[in-house]
């Protein structure tokens, strides 16, 4: 504000509400626990013994373990559970079939699913008034997050040219020069290895496809949608200061037949703790390790709204919850063997 005691000795404070940012805080649990992730095919062909699957997850998600991971006493723990349904690529089965099956199988293992989300919701046009407002609305949550990417600069990047925007790819270092590149009348350029920006003696170079143009539009990659999913669970996404997605109550006895009619994040009846949380834990089959490696790398190159970041850190401080400022450090995984 422009204020002060001028010649009149009167303090003048001038405000204009339009000029002030309004950024909404959302409720936060201590821990958001993802109870596995299944490919749609596995649900269709019935190749996975769902009760046994959830049974293995349950061994890793006891209250003591969760309180430990959340870094809070068990008596204070607020944790919510969630499952993301893999419906983006193809969805032969609708919510009316999949949801009851998942709920029943989890229950047989002693687990309660608090929230169910659909992966396609991260790529679909956003619902709610926030999505429509503003001169440049984000087409989807994935679009929103892509706009937040701040690429890890390679050594030598000083801003004098635009950041390398490699059509839909994001990496953690310097790519190997394109194979077979040759200048006219010269021998092929000798191969050079890629380089990880933060190599510890040796590089573990990772290059992740974020999207690809396909047919009518952009197809988002599974690791990128999983990154969006982590950011939603961490409560870090806003559109014009409003929550980018809010859980919607659903009635498990009255489910739609198609995922398009299903909310992006659905809350099942019960006394669930808030969906978003300071930290996340995902208990997944070991086959998802490469995906989650990509998720962690991408999360490490997402710059969320500094106001949101600050609000979250300050709240954690008030609650005496230790919380790292770096997003990848808030994300935990358990990978199950075969």
């Amino acid at each position: 504000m422009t204020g002060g005691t001028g010649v009149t000795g009167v303090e003048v404070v001038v405000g204009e509400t339009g000029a002030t940012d309004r950024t909404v805080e959302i409720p936060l649990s201590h821990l958001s626990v993802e109870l596995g992730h299944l490919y749609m095919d596995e649900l269709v062909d019935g190749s996975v013994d769902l009760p046994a699957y959830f049974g293995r997850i349950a061994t890793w998600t006891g209250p003591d373990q969760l309180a430990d991971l959340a870094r809070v006493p068990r008596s204070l723990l607020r944790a919510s559970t969630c499952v993301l349904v893999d419906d983006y690529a193809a969805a032969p089965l609708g919510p009316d079939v999949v949801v009851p099956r998942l709920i029943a199988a989890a229950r047989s293992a002693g687990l309660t699913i608090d929230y169910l989300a659909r992966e396609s919701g991260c790529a679909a046009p956003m619902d709610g008034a926030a999505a429509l407002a503003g001169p440049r609305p984000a087409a989807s949550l994935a679009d929103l997050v892509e706009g937040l990417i701040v690429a890890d600069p390679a050594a030598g990047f000083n801003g004098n040219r635009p950041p390398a925007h490699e059509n839909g790819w994001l990496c953690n270092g310097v790519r190997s020069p394109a194979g077979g590149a040759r200048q006219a009348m010269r021998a092929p350029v000798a191969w050079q290895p890629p380089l990880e920006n933060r190599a510890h003696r040796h590089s573990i170079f990772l290059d992740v496809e974020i999207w690809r143009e396909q047919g009518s539009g952009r197809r988002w990659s599974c690791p990128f949608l999983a990154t969006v999913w982590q950011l939603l669970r961490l409560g870090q996404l806003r559109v014009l200061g409003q929550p980018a997605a809010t859980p919607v109550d659903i009635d498990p006895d009255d489910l739609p037949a198609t995922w398009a009619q299903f909310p992006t994040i659905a809350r099942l009846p019960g006394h669930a703790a808030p969906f978003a949380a300071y930290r996340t834990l995902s208990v997944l089959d070991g086959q998802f390790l490469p995906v989650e490696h990509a998720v962690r790398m991408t999360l490490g190159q997402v710059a969320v709204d500094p106001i949101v970041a600050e609000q979250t850190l300050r709240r954690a401080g008030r609650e005496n919850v230790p919380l790292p400022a770096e997003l990848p450090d808030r994300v935990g995984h358990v990978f199950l063997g075969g």
Partner: protein
Amino acid sequence: MAAQGEAQRADERGAGIIPAAGAGSCVLVGEVRTGLLAHSRALTEPEATGIVTLRPGSQVRVSARPVPHCVSPDLTLGVHCPVPSASGARRDGLGTVLSRASVTSGRLVQASTHGRIVLGGARSAGRRRPWAHHLAHPGMIEVGGRLSVDDLADGFLSTETGDGPGSTLDLGAVCGRLLDQAQESPFLDQKPPFRARRTRFRFALLPCGHPAVGESASRSESAVADTTSGRSPVPGHVCRVGFVVADETVRTLRIHGSGLDLVSVVGLCEDLALHDWLLTTVQYVVTGSRVRAGGGGRLPSQLKPVIDHLLHVWMPGARIGEELLPVWTGLEQRLGFSRQWESLVGWIRDQLALALLASLGDGAR
């Protein structure tokens, strides 16, 4: 008004803007580029908002008083390169710079880029910190190795950037691209009412005096925290200001101060750059008119767009916080920005009056 939004943003950022423990002294460097919007008429507020909405889903800050003004959200860019140095010392910096674009009065467009360079921080030798660490401290560049604040500021202020190769930090290029991006917006018809040159305004904020590195660190940290929380026991103050008109389009400003809110300093520099551009542009037009004024009492044609589009934009210091007003006042006293402006405006009004008299005379004949 905007300044309130800035104060609140700064407050929200509070802890986030403070460098990690063990950091050394810090220099804020930045560049502002100012130009006339490539459009035949003044933009309405929704149009101006459209120009500065540079990222989907992000908020644009709009204020209507004293002149319409809208500012984009901060854009973050990662850099890893040597920071400027007058002595030629090569010290690598790693971190991010922040940029924003703004439209004032639907007529003027600015892009500004800044970074807070933290010298002598406890950067682990050899291995980088995770990139997420740098994203958690937006607008901060950590420099390993020894470098004095003066060496850095002198190097930054004296080096022309944005035009060529070079390997040191190039805020001018980042800023120039952002201005281009705004000027290439589909909202604009690319038909400005007159030609006006872009100006470049580089600034550096250094600590007061030359305290020891450790002392400066604790002072600047606590000072930032204090002013941004609005509960400052010792209000921020400016010790010394140096303004240099380097050439026709380049200006530099060097501020020594302590306890200042960095967001406000950037705002001050944008405001100074805007008024300097107005002065430079109107003076250029007036000089041209004087040369060409053929008498006969006809209003030189190039004055009309200036009257239509620029004269009402002059509002010096309107968005400036109290602790920075002395900078404006000081520059006014020494350089007489407003006196020069009044004189130019007076001359234009005289021409207008003469033209009116002449046309009345024509009518009487």
